């Protein structure tokens, strides 16, 4: 019987690798089989702002004690000679899509998972891929030859197991691991639950409330118990603990309409005043609706999330409307209502605004009290200007105030410099 082997390729320290590989003074010394042939280099955000954290570090930088999410100041205390590079997000995204294109050329199925990870799949046994380990090594080599970037590959009989095999590949000399159904008991279930990808805070809950130590311990718990504690996630966790996962590879995943869109911003300082928070909410909402309009969609569930000062606590709440819209003016009062209902007055460090339950935009929401067609025309014109001349080419007057973040945000991708 022919089966499919799923693989996950994960680029090593991706942003830092892009920097090393694109600078001749480092690239020429770089070797695929020797992490120490890299300089001690980090990619870090602007040190003057809260975004001044380490986004990526080469293995030699990590050996000096530097880790991602550490502040640049902390990293420089540990390693004063560290080479610090400002992020170039556009460049990393360009490299990322090209690596995925290469994977697409080598395997029948491919799906990008994140900026530095991609799933692939191939039939096995098959004449084209007689040796899965060799196929993975060829992929690694092709990525190295074209991009000078190291990667590790995990393979198994489903996406979840491939993801976990990929983690295991970290410690293997050749950075390639292939797990079969026979490896569930010995290799997956013996891992600590804190090694289980995707659990996040649930790992701590499982440990503290159910005395779970290993992934195998979860499998021993009754499904109803895990489901009762974590809802739909409980079922996923339980399935994963036994090596089951039904996720298919969808090569067209990114060409399908959005199901929801959100924008998040970490603020440069704690915001205390409602008036200041309102400005950022409006800017984020403008961005969300701009993207929803660009995709020719409308949504009817609007959400607001906040992370409080020192990243301690916060909330995320959403409201479902009676109608679909892509109009900031219609959504803004709803988001402010969420703010007033759920914000406890704490200082705010990060804000997220979302719009989901999206559907194709085919109709116009008419109201007796405003001039919807006229306003739609105005919004369309502003969208066109922004598309042509950039996000900050037309902005609201409030964005020019102290609270406004739009100008700074427009210079960044994902919160980091373009």
């Amino acid at each position: 019987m022919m089966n499919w082997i799923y693989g996950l390729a994960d680029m090593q320290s991706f942003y830092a690798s892009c920097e090393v590989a694109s600078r001749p003074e480092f690239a020429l010394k770089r070797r695929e089989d020797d992490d120490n042939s890299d300089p001690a280099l980090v990619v870090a955000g602007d040190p003057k702002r809260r975004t001044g954290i380490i986004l990526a570090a080469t293995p030699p930088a990590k050996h000096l004690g530097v880790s991602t999410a550490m502040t640049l100041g902390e990293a420089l205390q540990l390693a004063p000679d560290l080479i610090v590079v400002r992020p170039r997000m556009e460049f990393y995204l360009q490299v990322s899509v090209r690596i995925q294109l290469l994977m697409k050329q080598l395997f029948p199925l491919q799906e990008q998972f994140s900026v530095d990870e991609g799933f692939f799949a191939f039939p096995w046994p098959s004449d084209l891929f007689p040796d899965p380990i060799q196929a993975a090594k060829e992929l690694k080599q092709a990525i190295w030859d074209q991009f000078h970037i190291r990667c590790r590959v995990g393979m198994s009989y489903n996406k979840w197991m491939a993801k976990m095999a990929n983690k295991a590949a970290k410690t293997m000399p050749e950075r390639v691991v292939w797990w079969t159904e026979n490896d569930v008991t010995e290799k997956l279930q013996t891992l600590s639950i804190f090694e289980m990808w995707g659990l996040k805070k649930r790992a701590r809950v499982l440990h503290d409330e159910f005395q779970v130590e290993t992934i195998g311990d979860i499998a021993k718990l009754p499904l109803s118990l895990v489901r009762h504690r974590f809802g739909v996630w409980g079922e996923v966790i339980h399935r994963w603990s036994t090596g089951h996962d039904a996720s298919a590879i969808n090569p067209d995943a990114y060409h399908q309409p959005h199901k929801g869109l959100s924008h998040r911003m970490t603020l440069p300082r704690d915001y205390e005043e409602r008036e200041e928070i309102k400005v950022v909410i409006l800017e984020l909402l403008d961005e969300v609706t701009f993207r929803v309009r660009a995709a020719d969609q409308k949504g009817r569930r609007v959400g607001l999330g906040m992370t409080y000062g020192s990243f301690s606590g916060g909330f995320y709440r959403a409201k479902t409307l009676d109608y679909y819209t892509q109009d900031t003016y219609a959504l803004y009062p709803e988001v402010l209502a969420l703010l007033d209902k759920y914000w406890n007055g704490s200082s705010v460090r990060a804000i997220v605004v979302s719009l989901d339950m999206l559907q194709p935009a085919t109709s116009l929401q008419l109201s007796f009290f405003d001039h919807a067609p006229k306003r739609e025309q105005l919004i369309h014109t502003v969208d066109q200007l922004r598309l042509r001349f950039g996000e900050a080419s037309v902005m609201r007057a409030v964005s020019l105030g102290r609270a406004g973040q739009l100008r700074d945000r427009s210079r960044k991708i994902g919160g980091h410099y373009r």
Partner: protein
Amino acid sequence: MNIADGNIFEAMRLVLPEHRELMGELGRLTKNRQRPELADDEVAEFEYLWGEAWMGQGELEVTLFQSGDEHTICGIPLSYQPPLRLQSEHGCIMIALQDIIHVKRL
């Protein structure tokens, strides 16, 4: 998230809008491939290989660019002047000269 759909990884991924746009852009570019421009010496080399195979009943691998995609055919040339014909394992195939982008001796 709908577990019945088996789309857990799709539901969990975080993709920057700029990244998604770039993927779409590259996808469109790769789909709308243009026919490669051939240098004069490449054309001369293909002509030579074709003629040689026609004279000596040699087998060629011919790469054609049709509808934005590449196709490869193997066979023995049956004619030297257009219309070009190739005897392949699937029978006699007519080849438009402007579709040829590569010729290789087998």
